[in-house]
């Protein structure tokens, strides 16, 4: 990419001191997000994908030990004061959470909260203008009768509508970066489809870049331009969406793709699961953290942790595996189209 990255994360490491010992949640993660693009961060529980996002928003508890650098629009977020950071939160970077109920305040109307979100960052905007803008925002996210709905409290909204309202709040100040943490996980399939469309529209309306954090490989396939796969706090593979799905060069990514049943193909054959479970961040295996579950593991995988290596000259496709080049080809291509 030739454009200057909007967000540049370098060697981000996050650990927590707990009763059980030091938890290495994120370990040496580096990546860029360019203006307007959608980057998906994919991983299972404990992969560190959410902690990475929370670190970017500076939303981690004080007990978190963070090192590395997060540069957003030329400023190092980790060295900003809380006050300076608050100016960026919600204005330049906005977050869409999994559970809208926790993000909306139950005792204020949706319109109140939208207007408040605008006026916090733009105190010069009049109340009337802010309230007009709230209605406009609700319209963008497809809430019917926004003039009436703006007076409602969050509990009067359905789950899908609350998620829309939260998206409206996220885009209220035309942020440059949206971070969506499992935005559709709590929703039903038909509502999910609506919300994905709303996010797409919201992104279009604002030109914002988006980091989409999810475990849903189907969702990623439809919306992301680039994908990075995390496992045990490390980046395991990163590349264009097509590259990851059709030309993955990482045993974990391949295993993940193989283990999902997909209704678009007849699947009478057995699934091919990855044995075992994702690692605990307290006692990560020595060497490659995927080694205990990997069918290709050899002695070197225990002795030496593989580096995230570029597999093409531009470095667009990178994989963390000693045997990235030798792995069998794999493609997540469904045989036929349903419906």
């Amino acid at each position, binding site marked *: 990419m030739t454009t200057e990255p909007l967000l540049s994360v370098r060697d981000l490491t996050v650990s927590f001191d707990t009763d059980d010992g030091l938890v290495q949640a994120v370990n040496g993660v580096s990546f860029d997000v360019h203006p307007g693009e959608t980057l998906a961060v994919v991983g299972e529980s404990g992969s560190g994908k959410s902690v990475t996002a929370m670190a970017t928003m500076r939303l981690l508890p004080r007990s978190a030990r963070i090192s590395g650098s997060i540069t957003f629009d030329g400023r190092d977020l980790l060295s900003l004061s809380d006050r300076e950071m608050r100016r960026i939160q919600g204005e330049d970077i906005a977050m869409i959470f999994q559970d809208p109920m926790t993000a909306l305040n139950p005792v204020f109307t949706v319109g109140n909260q939208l207007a408040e979100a605008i006026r916090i960052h733009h105190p010069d905007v009049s109340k009337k203008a802010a309230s007009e803008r709230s209605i406009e925002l609700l319209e963008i996210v497809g809430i019917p009768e926004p003039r009436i709905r703006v007076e409602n409290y969050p509990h009067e909204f359905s789950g899908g509508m609350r998620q829309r309202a939260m998206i409206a709040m996220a885009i209220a100040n035309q942020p440059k970066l949206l971070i969506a943490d499992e935005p559709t996980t709590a929703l039903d399939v038909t509502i999910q489809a609506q919300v994905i469309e709303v996010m797409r529209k919201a992104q279009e309306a604002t030109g914002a870049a988006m980091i989409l954090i999810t475990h849903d490989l189907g969702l990623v396939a439809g919306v992301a331009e680039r994908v990075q796969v995390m496992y045990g706090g490390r980046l395991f593979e990163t590349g264009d969406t097509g590259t990851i799905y059709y030309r993955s060069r990482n045993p974990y990514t391949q295993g993940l793709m193989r283990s999902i049943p997909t209704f678009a193909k007849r699947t009478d054959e057995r699934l091919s699961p990855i044995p075992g479970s994702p690692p*605990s961040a307290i006692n990560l295996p020595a060497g490659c953290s995927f080694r205990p579950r990997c069918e290709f593991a050899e002695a070197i995988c225990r002795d030496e942790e593989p580096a995230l290596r570029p597999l093409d000259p531009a470095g667009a496709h990178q994989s963390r595996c000693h045997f990235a080049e030798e792995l069998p080809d794999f493609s997540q291509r469904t045989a036929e189209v349903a419906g």
Partner: protein
Amino acid sequence: MSEQPRPEEAHTGDPGLVTAEADAEPTTRALSDDVIVDEREGMTISTRSFGRQTWDRFRRHRLAMFAAALLVLLAISFWVAPMLSSYGFRDIDVAAMREGPSFRHPFGTDQIGRDLLVRTFHGGRFSLRIALVVALLTTFIGTVIGSLAGYFGGIVDTLLSQLINLFLIVPALVVLLVVGVRYGASPNGIAVILALLLWPAIARVVRGLFLQFRDQEFVLAARAAGARPPRIIVRHILPNTFGPIIVNATLLIGTAIILESTLSFLGVGVTPPTPTLGNLVNEAKGAIDSRPSTILIPGGFVVLIALCVNFLGDGLRDALDPTTRKG
């Protein structure tokens, strides 16, 4: 990751949690003598026995350990120390009235020349006994009524909750005053009356916990297996309520000791000359200016016991919960 050498898979005693697809390669590695990491399953497992783990969890709780040791020490001295003394708690020494601390009477003597050390330790004995009886009785009554109300719900709950509320609104002190004035009281009598007044606190907690647990999937699973209500209550829900019950019971021990002292202070508690810590404070109230030690010593024991019991309860709650992680 660090380059530090890691302990290798020397422990072969534990075969690991082998999944159906697992091959021959061992997936576990020993972290220390009794902790094993299953790398394939991403789990840390302790090889210590359940009892040992419970003890380890308790031991980690420094304050609780200290409180337990102190309580044991207090109890022993309450029982043993008076035996070593040549004075009984009723023995009057007219030659030594209102004496300050001395070698012969380390805590001094009261207005009729009784040795205060002996009386304080005897008082501690009776106070502790009352507190223990109260704790056991309230826990028993509260748990039975609370669990029935919470598990069965409906009309059972409505009736029992009314009963609980009825007891809660009874002004405890007034009842105790009336009963105490009318009948006087023995230590056991006071304990029973206190228990009758304090059980609703436990019952409410237990009822709430049962309401919360009764629709949990593991309870449904027990029902799906054909378990009858008594089994579900005793084997499934009750063990999950031990923590809060113990904490509340220990809080009640503190309350009971303090209430007993209050009653005695008001002159309607355990009938003198039987000493309790409260009686002693009551008897010394006239000397608050001249000899504050006669109040501070028994009063200090009341506070000390109540504090220790609370810390002990904290430690027990954590130790009895297998999901509390070991350090």
